């Protein structure tokens, strides 16, 4: 192992040729072509992800189906159900076959989308917003306000929300509609949003730029709205999207248990519940609404997860 270099352990003083190792100016400003901040970066990242587009397209599709079901089927879901056709297989008129009552499965799925999505969106409108407000108040004021609100959240959090909804729905069974179901679910899901919001507010509140704002003489409230809240929102959006998915599942579970939407209302949960007795004879009546339900929930879950991976640098590292 010999080499051409000079003897070792000598006082040789090596200098790299300056032409090969040019020295750049200290701390030069290098600007990229495009402006970037958290939101534009996240968008640039999301734009490149197929899963984001697939889930967005499915979500949009389900929203359009829910709003305008008649665009997708001309067969009314209930009218014209003939018991004679009970459990008939797929045909040209009824591409997914018929239920036990002789109703068109496809049409019922299309018309059932509304209930699921409505419950989902009302739940996040109620519990997401309530949770975000309670969380930011707790984080903003701190002290005893924080303790009281968070202990209250602990109490609501200590009852599994579907069980709580079962009790509420049992009591209010006379008044059931989409809003009551959403309320029953949302009443016990707000603490998770509140917790995320609070911890984000506390994190941002302690950052130096908020202290710099205080030193500038900005009021606490102005700081909250100008600096703290905008920086606290991203994780809350993610949690909200995921709880939308959970709310849709919860509605279906309640309807399945018979304490959700009234049996007359078109809903995937109700249809699955009604089809369970025909599982062996006509599994299609159970499988198709289940599939619709699963794809909807999956779309929101994937949407939420891709959003998280783009907005949260910690989650990005897991990719």
């Amino acid at each position: 192992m010999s080499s051409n270099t000079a003897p070792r352990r000598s006082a040789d003083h090596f200098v790299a040729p300056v032409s090969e190792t040019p020295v750049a100016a200290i701390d030069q400003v290098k600007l990229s072509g495009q402006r970037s901040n958290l939101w534009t970066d996240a968008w640039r990242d999301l734009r490149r992800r197929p899963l984001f587009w697939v889930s967005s397209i499915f979500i949009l599709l389900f929203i359009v189906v829910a709003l305008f079901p008649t665009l997708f089927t001309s067969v009314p879901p209930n009218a014209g159900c003939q018991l004679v056709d009970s459990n008939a297989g797929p045909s040209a008129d009824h591409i997914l076959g018929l239920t036990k009552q002789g109703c068109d499965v496809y049409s019922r799925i299309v018309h059932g989308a509304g209930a699921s999505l409505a419950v989902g969106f009302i739940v996040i409108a109620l519990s997401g917003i309530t949770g975000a407000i309670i969380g930011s108040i707790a984080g903003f004021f701190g002290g005893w306000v924080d303790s009281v609100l968070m202990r209250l959240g602990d109490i609501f959090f200590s009852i599994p929300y579907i069980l709580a909804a079962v009790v509420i729905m049992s009591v209010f069974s006379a008044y059931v509609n989409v809003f009551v179901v959403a309320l029953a679910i949302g009443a016990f899901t707000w603490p998770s949003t509140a917790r995320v919001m609070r911890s984000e507010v506390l994190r941002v509140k302690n950052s130096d730029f908020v202290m710099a704002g205080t030193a500038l003489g900005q009021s606490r409230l102005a700081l909250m709205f100008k600096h703290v809240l905008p920086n606290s929102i991203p994780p809350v959006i993610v949690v909200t999207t995921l709880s939308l998915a959970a709310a849709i599942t919860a509605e279906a579970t309640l309807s399945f248990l018979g304490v959700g939407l009234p049996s007359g209302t078109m809903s995937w949960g109700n249809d699955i519940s009604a089809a369970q007795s025909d599982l062996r004879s006509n599994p299609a009546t159970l499988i198709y609404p289940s599939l619709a339900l699963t794809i909807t929930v999956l779309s929101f879950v994937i949407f939420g997860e891709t959003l998280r991976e783009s907005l949260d640098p910690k989650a990005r590292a897991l990719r």
Partner: protein
Amino acid sequence: MTDTRTPLLEVKDLEVAFRTQRGSVKALNGVSFTIEHGETVAIVGESGSGKSTTAAAIINLLPGTGQITNGQVLFEGQDLAKASRSQLEHVRGRGIGFVPQDPMSNLNPVWSVGFQVEETIRANGVATSPRDVKKKAVEVLKQAGLDDADKRMRQFPHQFSGGMRQRVLIGIGLSGDPKLLIADEPTSALDVTVQRRILDHLGTLTGDAGTAVLFITHDLGLAAERAEKLIVMYKGDIVEAGPSLEVLQNPLHPYTQRLIAAAPSLASRRIQGSEQKLGELKHDTETDAGSVDLITAAEERAEHLAANPSEPVIQIRDLTKVFKIRTGGFRSVDFTAVDKVSFEIPKGTTTALVGESGSGKSTVAKLLLGLESATSGSISVGGRDITTLNRRELFRLRRTMQPVFQDPYGTLDPLVNIGNTIAEPLKIHGVGDRDSRRDRVTELLEQVALPVELADRYPNELSGGQRQRVAVARALALKPEIIVLDEAVSALDVLVQAQILQLLAELQSELGLTYLFITHDLAVVRVIADNVCVMQKGRIVEQASTDEVFASPKEQYTRDLLDAIPGAGIKIGV
């Protein structure tokens, strides 16, 4: 078995690349050096120079997607770059020991300290029977400086102080009796006095055992003081290497020259040094825009001061701050963070408040800025006691006094663009209309030497140093008289730090600013401050002019701090 003619470690044309989304990025472009048996070598460089990558590549533990793409790492003739996993496992620990940078994160929090030492001893076959392993572990920890090692073996890392943990890590690094110890910034996370004690101890241990040491450090002073040989790295290349003193006294590469000119610990002793040398240095680096020299800055300041003798603008009397600390349950104890602190700052000058972590220096800054309220004592600014101001008066006072904080990554709101960040103080205080505010932002950006196009960009496009400039611009927006700099340059690389210090000095002479400069780094104090207050445990133990403190410190604690400045023992440029 060792052939004394083959070097202990020979790194040849080492290239390392990291895979990223945009293809592979080279971190090392062919690095070669050797370490002889028993030799101490230091690699010096700024962040991004590739110094830590070199250390990791030697023991083949590159983080993430890093890979050795070319070259050899010959350890006693064996190429570690191509060694198998089990061969590497054999070399690590008993051939090459490793002491990592951050004592807080390098011990596993869920295992006791004894467990983590014992598993090392067992893995390296130093001892096998449980009793021998335990005995050896206690011995290793005692050697590393933990006197009550047998009692503390069962404790967990979080029950140890940072300095103690670093001692444990040194013990672990040396427990396999390695021939080479790689120490990657082993003490940068610690207070200076602790840092010195630990480095001394490490020196003794390796010296006694004849262990070769490779230091990785950003601190030229530390490197020169501790190592026989210096390797200066810049952007993945070795730009200069040689005997430490030789490199320091006769730097040949412009980058090394620049680094030496900017290192506060070395520069401070050069102020009285040869003027001619400085002239040469400046000449060599003239081609490079943005080259800095702290001495010029210091001289300008001194001239300015001599021309303008001034009266105090800040007077602090018996300032005390007591925090209540909850100790579980419902009890709480009083903790006096600031204890009867008194000092004055003459207008247009810089007073440095120096102390180690927990000395209460940052609390003083917060009290002065009105971010915390004092328990007792008075703070007067421009002759008015600010502890008795009402909200409106306090609001007006804030125009005259602005802070710059330590963490460049936390100081700017990531969602607000640079222009709006700098204009925010003007908006809050209702100064000017939109157009005049925009003009002022342009003016401020020029003042801190940033391009005007930055106004509609966001902070995440900027480096740490550039963010600190923006923070300075924001602080200057309202034309304040006083700026409180709370560790404002501590998180920056040496060259960037020097650049910001120079900017601060220029702004001071231009605008007649008064600075309160909070820092843990006495070396920086020498090049920026006129007066120094040394704080320890909430009290000011010594205050005097900078020259006095450096020339004839009265307190033992000040002397300890001065001695602890890395490189304090070396004379260069004389």
